[in-house]
Structure formats: C-alpha cells, structure tokens
C-alpha cells in the first residue's frame, strides 16, 4: 500500500466516522514496516530473513468504547473505517465508565530516529562479513556453541486523528548479540553473552552496530568468563547483598518498575493475560516504592534508544518525567484514554496529562500503554569499583537467563548467566547457576547503593511482550549499577 493512494481516503474516512457520531478517531498508515534478521550459529548462516508489512489500522471511539480494524489490502480502506466504527458501536453496548480522550489541539510533527548509515542500505555481503569476523573472534576449543545475530527494523508511518494531527515517523532500530555456550564439569550448559547497548546519545544506524565499544570488542571477555564458569562452584542458598550490573539491572527495572507502572495494568485491563499490578491509584504520590536512593524516570531525554520515538500512537509528544522520586511513587506510564478513566475512577485529577506511552507494535494492533525508556537515574555512590569495595558479603550479577514474575509484579525470581562472589570488598571467585528472588517493595527498600554516571548505560529491549493479541515492543532502559541488601540467592537444596 502507498501513502499517495490512501491519504485522501483516510482523511475522508475520519471525517465520515466523526459525522456518524464518533467521539474520536485516529488512523495509522504504515507504508513500510520492515525487518531483517541475520544469525550465524556455529558459523552457519541459520537466519537470513527479511520482512515487509504495509497496511492501515483505524481506531474509533464511539459511545465511550473503542473499535479497531486493520487491513493489508489497499481496496479495503473505506471498509476498514466502517468495521472500526461498527466495532465501537457494538462495544458501547457494554460500558462501565465511558472512555473520553478529552480534547487536545492537533499536532503537526515529524520524527526520525537519528541515523548515520541506514542499516537497510548496507549490502548484505557487508553485514555478513562483519558477523563472520565477530563469529571467528568467538571461537575457542572449549566453546560448543556460538551465536552472533543482528536484528534490524525500519518503520515509516503516518498518523492522523480527528483533532487534525498529522505526524510522520521514520524509526530505525538495530539490535545485536553475541552468545557462547559450553558444558561445565557437571554437564550443564553455561552461557555468556554480550548484547549491543547504546551510549544514549549519538546515532543509531549501522555505525552503532559496528562500534566495537558497544558490544563486539567484548568477545575475549565473555570467552574468559565462560571458561571460568565451566570450573566454577554452584552458588549456595542464602541471604546476601547483590550488585546488579546494567546487563541484569535493566530487566529487574523492566519487570518490577516498568510493568507495574503501566496504567492499563493498574486499572485492570491486562488481568486475563499479562496480569495486574500491586500499585493502585491511591499509591500515586504516597507509596514508598524503595529507598531514598531510588529515582526512576520515563524517557529521560534519551536521544538514541528504541524507546525514543518522538510521538506515541495517540500523537502525544514523548515526555520526560519522574516515575519515582527519592523512593516515592509519583507518576505512571500513561495514555490519554487511561488517564481519563483513572481520574474518573479516583474522582480527582491524579494525572494531568498523558505520559505519551500509548504504543502499538504494528498497524494491525491497537495501541496500549507501554514502556518508553524507563530508567534509573545515576546515583552518588561512585563507580562499580567503589560499590564493590563498600560491600562486605555479596555477589555481582550479570545478564538474565530466566525471569518469572508474580502476576501483580509483587514478587519475582531471576536466573543470571554469571555471579562473582564478593568478600570483604573484593571479587573473589566466579559462581555458576546464580538465581535470586524477592518481593518488589522489600527489594527496592533495600537498595543501598546506586552507581554514578560512569556505570550508566542504555540497554535495548527488542522483545517486550504484552497485550492480547500479543504485541512485541522495543524499549530502552538507562540503568546504573545497583546494590540491594538481604536478598535471597540460590536455590534451597
């Protein structure tokens, strides 16, 4: 489908459904939603795929309820508006609190991810040569499996709504990872990996993938660490301090701050699948989420991150605001419709504006409340070396192997690739099969050290799942090194 063929039909469609009594309408047209995946496994090119999607998604609010329809067929544009309107009318037969988008001025805007070299313009041969060199650097006699992959995204889409907004977005994302595996002395497979992170600033095209400092120069490090894991003893069950490197800290934040603060979860709209949240509307401004050292933000003015996209899928410009201020919960991840319902439910204004967090993964999925960039702000406890030196007994953890979180995000269990034991302020030895578990509020109450800016990096998440039908979203997390005390680690024997 081409924008030239559909623009007029879309404007007419919006006007028509509004004439038929709709309270709001928006449309998203994707002329291109493309991806490319290249994966070398043990040197064999096992993934060499590309995809292209194009189509239209229409959302109509009528009688306080949403209807949505989507099509990949150019001749169905008019019919798609009809179906969205009909769906909204049907939905309005069962309404509790009528949804209201409020009234906002129309916005004209354009956003493009900062890109130096468009990764889709780089010849496949060049990409393969880069990966093959990386793969050769991963090789060693003891390594039984090597994976080197790149996943690229390029989206070109337009947004219109009944308030007169018209926004063009060109989004580019690059994800990459190197992973090696080997059997340890107990015949258990151990893993070490390094994924592409961003410095937070600069551009996010192919030049990011080929920047050695962001991932590819770490091959020797992860090989040495894997070799140590193969001979390492298993972590013992017990309570101790844990220091999370950003490679693990991002997922901790993602699962136990990001998801519980999505307003649609808080309001109960995800109960049948993703789950709810222990956070309630009464919690905003009141709940002590963690120690005074805990400061969390949404967006955080990150120039270079998959969680930065200019405008959300309701046309709201991205915002930069605090979620947790010195341990107190002060805001959530919100969209226009959800803040309207939350304020109605609470009988007062809890949220005065949308957080710009309404996002959809494709033209054929309706937008829901998502994370943008959910970050932990750097602290004042120095470098990683400083924090280790200040730790009496503990472990340092990196990179997730498993994650399981309670349905209301009240408790969690994580497994990691590697742990380093800390004794009397020094790293002593590597431990394998590290796991830790805890209860969210108790865990963050025991946040005892937050690293400074030297420890802060933006981790890229290409695959956050939520919603029905499920939507996979790209997200960023800027996180420093963090230390938590009195954490249960390891498994009971």
């Amino acid at each position: 489908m081409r924008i030239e063929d559909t623009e007029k039909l879309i404007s007419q469609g919006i006007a028509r459904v509004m004439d038929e009594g709709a309270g709001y309408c928006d449309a998203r047209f994707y002329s291109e939603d493309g991806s490319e995946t290249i994966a070398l496994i043990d040197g064999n090119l096992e993934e060499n795929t590309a995809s292209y999607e194009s189509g239209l998604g229409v959302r109509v609010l009528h009688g306080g309820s949403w209807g949505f329809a989507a099509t990949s067929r150019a001749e169905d544009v008019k019919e798609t508006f009809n179906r969205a309107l009909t769906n909204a009318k049907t939905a309005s037969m069962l309404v509790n609190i009528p949804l209201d988008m409020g009234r906002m001025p129309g916005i004209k805007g354009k956003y493009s991810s900062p890109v130096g070299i468009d990764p889709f313009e780089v010849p496949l041969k060049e990409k393969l040569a880069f990966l093959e060199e990386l793969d050769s650097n991963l090789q060693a006699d003891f390594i039984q499996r090597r994976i080197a992959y790149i996943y690229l995204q390029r989206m070109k889409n337009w947004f219109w709504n009944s308030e007169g907004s018209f926004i063009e977005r060109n989004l580019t994302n690059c994800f990459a990872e190197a992973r090696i595996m080997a059997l340890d002395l107990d015949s258990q497979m151990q893993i070490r990996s390094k994924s592409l992170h961003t410095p937070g600033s600069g551009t996010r095209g192919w030049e990011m993938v080929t920047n050695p400092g962001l991932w590819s120069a770490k091959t020797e490090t992860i090989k040495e660490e894997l070799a140590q894991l193969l001979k390492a003893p298993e972590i013992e069950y017990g309570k101790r301090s844990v220091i999370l490197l950003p490679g693990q800290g991002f997922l901790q934040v993602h699962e136990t701050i990001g998801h519980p603060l999505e307003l649609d979860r808080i309001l109960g709209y995800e109960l049948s699948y993703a789950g709810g949240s222990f956070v309630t509307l009464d919690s905003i401004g009141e709940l002590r989420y963690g120690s005074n050292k805990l400061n969390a933000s949404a967006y955080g003015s990150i120039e270079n991150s998959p969680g930065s996209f200019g405008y959300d899928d309701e046309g709201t410009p991205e915002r930069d605001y605090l979620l947790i201020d010195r341990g107190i919960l002060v805001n959530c991840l919100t969209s226009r419709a959800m803040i309207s319902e939350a304020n109605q439910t609470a009988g007062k204004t809890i949220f005065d504006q949308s957080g710009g967090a309404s996002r959809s993964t494709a033209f054929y999925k309706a937008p829901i409340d998502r994370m943008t960039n959910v970050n932990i702000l750097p602290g004042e406890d120095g470098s990683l070396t400083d924090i280790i030196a200040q730790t009496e007994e503990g472990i340092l953890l990196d990179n997730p192997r498993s994650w399981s979180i309670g349905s209301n995000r009240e408790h969690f269990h994580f497994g990691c690739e590697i742990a380093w034991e800390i004794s009397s302020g020094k790293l002593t030895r590597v431990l394998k099969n590290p796991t830790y578990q805890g209860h969210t509020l108790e865990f963050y109450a025991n946040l005892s050290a937050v690293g400074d800016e030297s420890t802060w990096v933006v981790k890229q998440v290409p695959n956050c799942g939520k919603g029905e039908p499920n939507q996979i979203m790209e997200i960023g997390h800027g996180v420093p090194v963090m230390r938590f005390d009195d954490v249960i680690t390891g498994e009971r024997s």
Partner: protein
Amino acid sequence: MIDEKIRDAIIQVRDRAKSKNINAFFTMHREKSHLLRIGNNAVSLNTSTDLTRLDVEVIDGHRKGSYSVMTDISSPDVVENALQTAVEKASVATPKEYKPLELIVEKEIKGMEQYDPALEELDPMVKTETYRKIIDETGKDYNYSGSWNSGSTEILLACTANKNIAWRKGTDQQFSCVLKDPVEKWELATFQTGWQAGEVTAKNAAADFKHILPVYHEPGFKVEPGEYTVVFGSQALADILRMLMWTGLNGKTYEEKMGWTSGKSIGDQILSEKVTIVDDPSNMNTFGFSFDMKGLARGFFPFVEEGKMTNLFYDIDTAGKYNRKPTPHNDSASLVMKHGDGPESPLEAVRNMGRVLFIPALHYVHIPNPSKGLFTGSSRFSAVLLENGEMRAPIFSSRVTDTFQNVFGNVELISSNDVSVNSSSSYDRRMPEATSVPSYMVSRGVKITDSADSF
C-alpha cells in the same frame, strides 16, 4: 474456498521458478481475526483484522534466504517480487557447512475438518452478550476482565520440488474471563476453547466461578516454603508440559546437550510410568493440521510412553545439520498427554491425602536451568488449599521452583478426564494450537520456594 487468485498467483510463480531451477517453498497465511476484550466490566477493545502474508524460502545449494511480505498477494508480480528478494538473499548468503534439507510438500492435502463459517463471522454482539450474562449470573460486585479471540486461519503451502499443494482452512477461538474481588484483590479465571460457534457458553463460565467463589471469601493462606502434594490443574499442566517438551524432547536441545534429557537415550525411563505424551493431530481436543509448516504429513507420533523416552522431534534445519530425519512438527503441534484413571473431580482424587495445594494455573513459567530441568512459576487464579478433599482457603501467590523430572516423576494420580487447553501463541500471526491434557495431575513432594502476602 481457496482464494483462487492467490493460489493461481503462487502456482504461476512457482512454475516459473521451477523452470529456472530455483528451489523455492511458498507459504501463504491468511487470517481473519476478531478480538473482544473486557476490562472493568465493559468492552475495552473490539477489533477486526484481515491480513494476508506470503513467506518465500529459497535454497541454493548450501545457501538459504527467505522473505516475508504482508500485503495484497493476489498479483503474480507481488509474489514474483518476493521470490526474487529471497533468491537475492540466498545468492549472497554464506554457505552452510551442511546441506539444508529440501523443502517438499509431501502430499496433496485439502483440509477443512475444523472450519465453521459461523465462528469465522461470529457477531461481536454474541461475545458482548456472553460476558454480560456471566456478570449477571455471577454477581455485579466483582470486577470482570477477559478476552475472546476468534477467527479463521487459511494456510497454503507449495514448493518447486513437486506439484503438491497443502491447504487448510480452520476456525478457532480462545475465551477467558477473570473475576477479581475489588477489595481483597484475589482473582478467579475460567477458560474455554474450540473451533465451532456455540462452544463457549456463559453458563459454563458462571458455573466455574460459582464453584470456587465460596472458599475465596475465607481468609487467604500463606504457603511456607517446603514440599507439598500439589494438584496441578489443566492450565498449569499444559504450561509445564510445553516447557518440558521444549527442553527435553526437542531434537535441537538434545543434540546441543542443552536440556534435561541430555545423556539419556531412547528407551530410558525419564518420567513416571503413569506419563504418556504423544503428538496426535487426529485428537479433536487439539487443532489438527494434517501437515506441518514445512510440508511434512502429520500423524500419530509418540514422545514419551509410560515414562520412557520414545522419540524426539526434529525441525527441518536441525535434522539437516545433525543428519537426522525431520519430524512433522515444524511450527505445528497437537500435543496430547494421556489421561489416567483418577476420578473426574480433583477434590475426590485427594480425599485421603491430607493437606494439598490445588494450583489450576501458573503465571510466567520460565527455565532457570534447562540442563537440570529446573522450572519456576507462580500460582495464579483460583488456587486453593485442600484438606482431605475439602476446599479450605484461597492461597496467596506462591512460587513453584522444581524440576520436570520431580513433578512428572512423582505422580500420584492423573485424571481420567481430558480437556483442551488453547495454547495458541498470539505473537506474530494467528496459528491455532491446543494441547489435550488430563483435567488434573497430582504430584508428591513439589517444591514451593516462596510466597507473597497477597493474592
């Protein structure tokens, strides 16, 4: 019922490709999906989507390339363009050390065994009214949410290796309703599935809720860490079973020595002799495809017989790499765990077992250590403490962290009643999948490692 224009476009391009000695495999996927979502006792979303996709895979000796497109594919030009993109990708690909197996549609197949036009076009009003009835029958003091996804999936496979076309059109639906107490915050859930209109009923959903509601007005019970006898309900059982299969009976995991059956051989006892697991597309509790997504014809296929490892499943790439025979389970599964001889009611089953935990569903099951078969997940929805078969108290969210070998090794009793659990992934494209499992399984010595102070 096949879209003639799309079929003809694919055949035309296929024949042209064959004449040029291009080795290609075509997959057409069309879905008509409808989803109605409920939140806070109201319809929160009502969606319709009509999407058509084409995947083209090209094998050029040791090289492979593929391309997927979602757009109108009824024109041969669009199909040709997709083919040429895949050809180009394959031509510059790095050759593999091994020769990929040729993709062949084994048989000419046309299937509409599980297609109901009434479900394909189900009026969203039916769904709205069903939820309204559930709310009316169960009580308006609670908060209801859920979703009801229904629609049709049409798949057509073609290849340049022969003239066969494999085609299936089927319907499926997945229904859930969650009841939450607005004050105490506990959650109950009911699930239904099927492929025909009329299979989902408000009456069944309301009956599920009414059965368990009285005990949920009792104070919550905090389960201390330790070992318990646990009744796993069908949702939990299906979840664990799929993870068990993926990490233990998957040829790829096995060859790479990643899973918990590494070191075991075909014929070894790996689970309780009460456990038999097969793939059976003729089982109507599953959505039965008579071919898999790489064109292999499907039929009865045992994985575990009376606890003994019988077969592994091999995807086509793994089979090529390790010189094995591929099994017809490429993106297709009709997993069946054979029933036992336990009574229909789980309460009756544990009448003489003292204190037992009933965990109908697990949330967020994951694998901290696949080599050990260690999995973890937390109880969710309708979990109850039982004493000698009587429901005593709802239990707070509790974490099970244990091994597949222990949970499926120390089996006390398996229900004689089979149920269908919809296990369709809604990631990416519509692909109906259901697992047939006994309605419950009782295991001894299951490890509870943590519990919350709330539901």
